[in-house]
């Protein structure tokens, strides 16, 4: 067992791994120049000592995550303490729930537990027979105590958990305490990252025991948008995205189902709508959508459905051409036609049976109203109503908001609605920022709630480095602390124009994970300089690969290929 930095250094040197030097050089390059200035000021001898000490500390951190002082948990928990012991994960690692008020009728906890053990064991074949090891060195199971009997997943539920892994006991059990099963699920995710395969024991090691972790998210809304209108994403691909979201403790899948290009979802009230799908096999049935929602729920993830009106809806007209202003001027949806709102009401009514999240997203962005002005029957309707085109836009957005509210939803709209309609928006509206940074401040000052997705930092289809994803602060410039609670959180957006089933994972990960830590981890524990978390994020990216997720290299802008041979941990 390596316990001191010096021993660690020796261990590292005997392992003589080129990687260490590589990382060292990389790291030195990235150290802030201030640190070097400080070292230079210390004079020659002291500099040497400082440098050697720096090397020692550095090796201590990098040489062996099983033994050293590095925490490889992503996102970083709020409060962590750990030791230097190791336990073997029992071959018959068990879940016990004595004292828990959660009955687990639908198997959410049981299934999450077995998934956790499966992914922990997926990196290598376990050869170790833990029945032959002293019980005092074996972690026999995990005791999960949940105080709420409910399995309802909703915005704002308690996602906190406490995880304790003792170093001693007879037998030794880890313990998770949580208010809700979804908090316990986060605890299991954290637990999975504390376990890793050990080549020396040929089994799974629970390292750095004893652990005491108390954790909870900073924001209640931590989203990822996927777009199934520009390219259809098969069910399996969506499920893989959800799996990896759970690994990073994201909790809202914003499903941008429909757009101008295609309408893949079945709407029983208006069965011709999915005539707007690309092909008859690039579709989701109601049962498929319900399956996605239930799959996500079992992983603690809400599904936010979106219909983006009145723009971004041209595909609706394939099945119902009267939704279009005219045959050759096909969008936005015809504001003058009552059928338009009847149909939206039907969609929302069908939605409310599938999508149980309390929010629905009504879009409202990028509306070009020229077709309304150019089409005679719409134009005369506008005149009759005494409306200009921007009044009609407002009328449309507000009327649809009312429909959504009547189905029991709270509404989310893209920020144009706020910019153009402002105070007339329903006061329950959550404004979804995207155009630029700094908008959240205006929104919360106006008394509305906000989700942050400024495109210069959190659009995954843009050329943006992971460091910028990490540094983007949802509460930027909001100095009045009482307004902070109006920022529900943030969301990274994977628009689908240039991505499909082949490259979506690589475009989403690891950059979405960088943002996930920003949204989960308490502000004071976030790195001020992203390079401080580089090795931990790199470790997490390699962990995603190990779990079969095609997360890309850290270097680059999201669609980067490895530029040459090398270790995953240096990229």
């Amino acid at each position, binding site marked *: 067992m390596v316990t001191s930095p010096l021993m660690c250094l020796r261990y590292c040197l005997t*392992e*003589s*791994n080129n*990687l260490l030097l590589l990382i060292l050089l990389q790291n030195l390059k990235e150290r802030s120049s201030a640190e070097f200035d400080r070292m230079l000021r210390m004079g020659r001898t002291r500099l040497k000592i400082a440098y050697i000490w720096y090397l020692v500390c550095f090796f201590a951190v990098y040489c062996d995550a099983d033994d050293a002082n590095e925490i490889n948990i992503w996102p970083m928990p709020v409060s962590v303490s750990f030791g230097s012991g190791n336990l073997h994960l029992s071959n018959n690692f068990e879940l016990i729930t004595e004292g828990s008020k959660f009955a687990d009728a639908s198997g959410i906890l049981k299934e999450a537990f077995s998934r956790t053990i499966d992914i922990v064991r*997926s*990196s*290598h*074949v376990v*050869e170790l027979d833990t029945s032959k090891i002293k019980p005092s060195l074996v972690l026999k199971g995990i005791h999960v105590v949940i105080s709420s009997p409910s399995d309802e997943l909703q915005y704002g539920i308690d996602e906190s958990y406490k995880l304790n892994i003792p170093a001693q006991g007879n037998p030794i059990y880890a313990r998770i305490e949580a208010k809700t099963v979804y908090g316990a699920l986060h605890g299991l995710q954290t637990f999975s990252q504390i376990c*890793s395969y050990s*080549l020396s024991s*040929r089994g799974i090691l629970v390292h750095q025991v004893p652990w005491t972790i108390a954790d909870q998210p900073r924001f209640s809304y931590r989203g990822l948008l996927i777009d199934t209108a*520009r*390219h*259809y994403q*098969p*069910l*399996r691909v969506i499920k*893989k995205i959800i799996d990896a979201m759970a690994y990073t403790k994201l909790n809202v899948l914003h499903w941008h189902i429909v757009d101008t*290009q*295609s309408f893949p979802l*079945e709407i029983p009230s208006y069965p011709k709508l*999915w005539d707007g799908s*690309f*092909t*008859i*096999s*690039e*579709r989701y*049935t*109601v*049962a*498929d959508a319900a*399956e996605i929602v239930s799959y996500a729920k079992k992983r603690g993830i809400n599904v936010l459905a979106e219909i983006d009106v009145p723009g971004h809806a041209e595909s609706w007209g394939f099945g119902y051409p009267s939704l279009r202003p005219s045959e050759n001027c096909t969008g936005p949806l015809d504001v003058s036609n009552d059928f338009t709102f009847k149909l939206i009401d039907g969609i929302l009514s069908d939605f409310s049976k599938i999508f149980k999240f309390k929010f629905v997203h009504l879009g409202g962005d990028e509306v070009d109203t020229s077709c309304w002005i150019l089409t005679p029957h719409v134009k005369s309707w506008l005149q009759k109503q005494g409306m200009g085109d921007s009044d009609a836009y407002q009328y449309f957005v507000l009327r649809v908001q009312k429909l959504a509210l009547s189905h029991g939803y709270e509404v989310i709209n893209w920020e144009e609605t706020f910019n153009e309609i402002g105070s007339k928006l329903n006061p329950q509206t959550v404004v979804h920022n995207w155009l630029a940074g700094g908008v959240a401040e205006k929104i919360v000052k106006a008394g509305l709630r906000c989700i942050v997705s400024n495109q210069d930092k959190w659009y995954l289809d843009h050329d943006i480095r992971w460091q910028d994803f990490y540094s983007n602060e949802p509460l930027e410039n909001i100095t009045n602390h009482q307004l902070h609670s109006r920022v529900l959180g943030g969301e990274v957006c994977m628009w689908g*124009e240039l*991505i*499909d*089933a*082949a*490259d*979506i*994972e*690589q475009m989403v990960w690891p950059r979405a994970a960088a943002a996930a830590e920003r949204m989960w981890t308490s502000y004071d524990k976030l790195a001020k300089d992203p390079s401080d978390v580089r090795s931990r994020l790199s470790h997490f990216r390699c962990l995603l*690969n*190990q*779990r*079969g997720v*095609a*997360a*890309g*290299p850290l270097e680059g802008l999201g*669609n980067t*290929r*490895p530029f*040459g*041979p090398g*270790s*995953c*941990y*240096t990229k």
Partner: protein
Amino acid sequence: MNSPSSFNPNSLLLAALLLLSQLLLTTCRNLGLHQLNYDGADDSPTYIWPLPSQYTSGNQTLTVNPNLTLFTSGNGGGSRIVSEAFDRYKRIIFEHASSKLPSSGIDYDLDKLTILVHSDDEELQLGVDESYNLLVAARDAHSVIGEVTIEANSVYGALHGLETLSQLCSFDYGTKTVKLYNAPWYIQDKPRFEYRGLLLDTSRHYLPIEIMKQVIESMSYAKLNVLHWHIIDEQSFPLEVPSFPKLWKGAYTKWERYTIDDASEIVDFAKKRGINVMAEVDVPGHAESWGTGYPDLWPSSSCREPLDVSKNFTFDLISGILSDMKKIFPFGLFHLGGDEVNTDCWTSTPHVQQWLQDHNMTAKDAYKYFVLRAQEIAISLNWTPVNWEETFNSFPTSLNPKTVVHNWLGAGVCPKAVAKGFRCIYSNQGFWYLDHLDVPWELVYYAEPLEYITDASQQKLVLGGEVCMWGETADASDVQQTIWPRAAAAAERLWSAQESRSSSTTVLERLEYFRCLLTRRGVPAAPVRNFYARSPPIGPGSCYRQ
């Protein structure tokens, strides 16, 4: 169905149907494009990839019971390989939630699948009988209930039959049931080449086991049957070798390693999908990483490649590696590399130079000596050696006659190798190197392993071909996009009889369909039409048109 004597009553029935279907073969190609929005069903292509060697179909649409039950017969029918594959394919076929539960009101046309496997020999080797017959009977006056039967001589043929069956089925979004279109089907299928390979390189980038398994699973969808595992190269040595435990110090990190059990797990996982694993130890070049654990293998600490030809230790170590590998890799072929050997370090390092003089060898002689000595080690372990073509190009007459020559440099070496009686594997880098991103699918598809070989007996010496996924710029994040769909183009070339392949106008449509099938199964296969491989779609659109 090679020997009529093995026919039991079941197969006699099939034989009769076969006779009937042969008559229909040319007249019955009206395959509806049920899956897509296309019209003009009559001239639409057959969406089976790779195309079976012989088939007929009709125009009935049959519904498939989500509780499809498996009945097995024959000596090999009870194999777990068969029942596990049946479960896997059931999950694929009935993927949509609404198709999983039988609706009480529906009478399904197809309730059962019979798999008949004649042989209980589960040994997987080059040349194992991979043929199968697949019969989907019509619903008619004689049988109210439709039937599906797969007949094969080996379990591995049966696996191919299941794959084909899964491609006949698709989910009908209208009725929310799985349907099998264009029944009745009679398919009689076998591979054109016995060796249909894909190379994976885990030295330039480590590929986690989960990723390796995803690739293997996807290979079975395209009926590829050899995973050529280029485990080690100059950059890293990820595999555990118990006889020389310091070798895997050459791994990038301790996390980027395969234990013996990991490797066995991969071999076992592949076997259950009918895929052989051929291991490679590329000597004497491409081996610098070996010296991290055993610096004696380097000519000197500043001149590290090729392996030191002058030391017996080098060969002791190779012998140790191969003995250890023999316990993991049961495939009859073993790849010894031998490519791109730059012998400068031998001539510039004093003690090696001295040894060359003592043995009256030029550097070229020493290269030959090294390759032949490594071949002897492999042969003593009952392996058939495979070597990259430079070995044949440099000393064709000295190579062990059992050698399989592995082409890569360009066209032309297979004709020469088979003319000299060697067997050959085709991997012309102009077409079948997947890391060459500027080779679009057509070039991959139309590359021909038997090019310039006209003599039938020489043609038999071409075992097949292999697409190579060198790993310099491919890691866990992009390896599958780089492999698919182009590897599928080669897979059809290797599987389908030349005469049965569809006309070029429908190949693209069929390949796009298969690419979308891969993505539905969770395989990140890239758009077909882009000139550069693995590049993202150029804009929004249907998977079937990109």
